[in-house]
């Protein structure tokens, strides 16, 4: 049987690429569930204290589409998103949408609260813990934003500042996905 050298080369190269990607994934996964492991699965649950001193458990928001935003007071790009989030909470909140901010910096809760107040934040801000960040893949980039459907499944994840239209699109899909899931029940 005659073997086409071009096909052999292509197959060998493809295997090489897959091995390369696999090794990268193995390396990247050392800090937690990233690279797809978290995508499509139920978001890791946590319970954190809000700036008002109340505990909020993520799973208590089941039934709502959730935008989970990891941010910090020192993060300039995070500051750009926050006014958008305020408007999005107002617009989509009545449809069953909830934004949750998780502050991942070392600033005191008082400083975080002052910052949030200055930004006019109208959604809960939780004081983050490293263990929560690790469960979401390390959160080594701020902002990092997850979009959960009404069942708590992670639909999208965005690193860094994105355009407002990307967020709106993800929110609409998260709201719709939840409805579709609920309709099946």
């Amino acid at each position, binding site marked *: 049987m005659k073997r086409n050298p*071009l096909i052999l080369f*292509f197959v060998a*190269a*493809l295997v090489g*690429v*897959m091995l*390369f*990607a696999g090794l*990268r*994934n193995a390396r*990247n996964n050392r800090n937690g569930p*990233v*690279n797809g492991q978290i995508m499509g699965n139920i978001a890791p649950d946590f319970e954190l204290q809000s700036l008002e001193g109340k505990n909020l458990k993520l799973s208590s928001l089941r039934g709502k589409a959730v935008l989970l935003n990891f941010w*910090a*007071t*020192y*993060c*300039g*790009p*995070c*500051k*750009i998103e926050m006014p958008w989030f305020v408007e999005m909470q107002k617009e989509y909140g009545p449809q069953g949408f909830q934004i949750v901010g998780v502050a*991942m*910096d*070392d*600033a005191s809760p008082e*400083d975080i609260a002052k*910052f949030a107040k200055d930004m006019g934040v109208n959604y809960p801000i939780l004081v983050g813990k490293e263990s929560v960040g690790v469960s979401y*893949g*390390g959160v*080594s*980039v*701020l*902002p*990092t934003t997850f979009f959960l459907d009404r069942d708590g499944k992670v639909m999208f*994840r965005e*690193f*860094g*500042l994105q355009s407002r239209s990307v967020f709106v699109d993800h929110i609409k899909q998260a709201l719709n996905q939840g409805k579709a899931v609920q309709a099946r029940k």
Partner: protein
Amino acid sequence: MKRNLICALLILLAKASAQDDVGLGPKGPVVKMAPAPTVAVVQGKSATETLSFKIANGFHINSNRPKSEYLIPTALKVGATTDIVIGRITYPEGKDMTFAFSPDEKLNVYAGDFTVDVLVRPLHTVTPGKYIVRGTLKFQACDNTACYPPKSLPISFDVRITKAASGHSRNPRQSPHVHH
């Protein structure tokens, strides 16, 4: 057909390479310190050590005096030594820059190369010899679309202390061992 196969392969390779890299933060260190020159100083006198740092392309860090109380300033912390007094640490002026994420607000940052001067003054009783001074540079980096948690870069430099011309007696209890 060959061209199509190569294109497909390149796309696969690019996808494999780019997959979620952004979520892991910068690939390498954002700030590196150049090898620090040994600073020579006479017992009881002062000298300045200039530390040179390089910030990776596409990144910036806050200056020592950022314009917002929420921003984390770049700060050098030098470990305490018993024989060498660490004096004034002088930071360069930052550059006022605007970024895509902050078009209306100028941030005072370092980008590219910058230096930090450290004044050292060994006590006049210190035994002449070579000493190592250690510390950390704390900084918080961002690029155009994201920020990264604060980091501490270990730094060190050598101080070679020579004997004063006259007038000071040597402290026999001290030796020129490396001090941390």
